[in-house]
């Protein structure tokens, strides 16, 4: 057997897959769906694992329907970690009733907020606006309207620092990722792919379709800590702005940044 891969059935119908990835990490995968309730169960599982110091877990990363566990196989043998996780999934998360209780608890613990992101959807910033319009059969204005006329849930933080995966976009906007990713996408690019949307917080490679750009920063660096703008569980909306407003907000950020740097010194 090359790798560990097993299915655990809970609730007599939900199948969760537990599999090892490499020497020091494994992945717990819930059913392939974007669901707020399921996501709350994932976060609950994450919290239970983090709380157990005897497991020597190094890091955990939650996503739409999965939870990555980074551990040290030398301190915690793979088999024993697998057994432990299996037990948690079969007991703590087994109860349909506890799911909704967990959901409420999780929402209460985390101060979920609404974040509104200003976006300039012009041809200059919306590199793929034309392509998205033609591929979906919508007009450019319809694309923008469908993107701004929705409320998104924050499901995962990752890809690059401060990058937050938001879902779900309107059905009409669903497109697969670009067949070859771009090696460089500008900071603040607002993009879509499949049922997701996100802001690229920094210049980076990327394979999503760019609709526009935001002048808003997606994180703050304060006292050597990193604070993302959007946290998992938050709600996000996009608001269209014009070029003038874009430049005004950009300038405010630059001014604030230099001010905070002077204060920090």
């Amino acid at each position, binding site marked *: *057997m*090359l*790798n*560990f*891969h097993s299915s655990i059935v809970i609730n007599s119908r939900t199948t969760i897959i537990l599999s*090892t*990835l*490499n*020497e*020091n*990490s494994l*992945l717990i*995968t819930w059913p*392939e769906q*974007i669901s707020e309730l399921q996501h709350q169960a994932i976060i609950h599982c994450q919290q239970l694992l983090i709380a157990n110091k005897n497991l020597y877990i*190094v*890091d*955990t*990363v*939650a*996503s*739409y*329907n*999965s*939870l*990555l566990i*980074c551990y*040290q*196989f*030398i*301190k915690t043998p*793979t088999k024993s970690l697998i057994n432990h996780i299996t037990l948690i999934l079969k007991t703590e998360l087994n109860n349909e009733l506890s799911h909704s209780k967990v959901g409420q608890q999780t929402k209460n613990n985390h101060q979920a907020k609404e974040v509104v992101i200003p976006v300039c959807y012009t041809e200059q910033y919306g590199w793929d606006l034309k392509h998205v319009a033609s591929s979906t059969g919508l007009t450019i204005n319809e694309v923008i309207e469908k993107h701004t006329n929705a409320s998104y849930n924050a499901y*995962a*933080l*990752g*890809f*690059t*620092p*401060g*990058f937050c*995966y938001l879902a779900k976009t309107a059905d009409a906007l669903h497109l*697969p*990722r670009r*067949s*070859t*990713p771009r*090696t460089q996408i500008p*900071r603040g690019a607002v993009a879509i792919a*499949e049922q*997701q949307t996100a802001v690229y*917080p*920094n*210049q*980076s*490679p990327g*394979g999503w379709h760019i609709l526009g750009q935001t002048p808003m920063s997606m994180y703050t*660096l304060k006292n*050597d800590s*990193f604070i*993302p703008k959007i946290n998992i569980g938050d709600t996000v909306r996009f608001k269209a702005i014009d070029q003038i407003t874009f430049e005004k907000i950009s300038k405010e950020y630059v001014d604030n940044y230099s001010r905070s740097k002077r204060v920090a010194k």
Partner: protein
Amino acid sequence: MLENKVTIISAQGHISIQDLGRKSSLHLGFPMSGAADEYSYLSANYLLNNQSNTAALEVTFGQVSLTVNCNSTFIITGANCNATINNKPIKHWQVYFIKENDLLKLSAPRKGVYSYINFAGGIQTKSYLGSKSQLPIQLLVTADNILEQLKGKKQVSLPLANNLTKQSLPNSKSVNLEKNQIEINRLEKHAISIKNWQKNYQQSHLTLRFIPQPLWQNLPLKQQAKIKQQPYLLTARSNKMGYRLQGNEIKATAESILLSKPVVYGCIQIPPDGQPIVLMKDHQTIGGYPILGYVIKSDLFRLAQMRANSTISFEPVSLMQAQTLLQNFYQRFEFT
């Protein structure tokens, strides 16, 4: 009292501070970063009698010159850059004694990519999120970006350890001051593995052992055989975020195109064009592409040192084999 410093006078390639990286910040979207070639980096610290996670200078494609304002032991490991001290050639993988105002110069390496320069006690810059490794380029402020600073000012100084104890400095009997050379027992222990390393890196082909994911296991045997037999080319579109390969298209079925999920260093991604990408130390933390498997940790430092136009083959191995090899690797450097 003057603080001990290493001053970087010039750098034509890339230079950054690296240790073993940020281990617990993946959940914020931070790649672990850290030394690209862990074997060379850890060897440098081991031979210097530093703690294994001591920050060092990682030099990409050599071409760096520096000096110090103190006396210290130091070493260069990794790609051979025909280094000199005061224009006198020195060996790599050998602990030396560097004196105040000595000039250390590295040329461009003919083979390999990364070289590691370290001193007793290492580079003493501030840690961020538990590591002194350079931040992802997108987050770097000018003050922490050595290359940016070199462009503006003339030189960049970095702090070295101030309490260089007798343990890190050799006694006069073992120092050949004229040659700056030191005999260190640890080097003998390590010598065989260095020979092997050097043998490995002379070659332009590498077999990458990987722990397969269901995508691999579900491929028809014919396709698996094809992938194993026909090597891939390492393209020049490769960097510390990912190494892009070119060769036989690997077709991922529709079922394997799933929701974005967390990925780790060594992940072999298959984008729609079927050309594999191996995620390296500065990789993205979440990915949406299908995953063929994960390159074993013990082969990733080898991959890091391969140059564009080298060839790469894939060989599936089991998790247990991978863990055994990694355990041996840890034991060599006496750390967990």
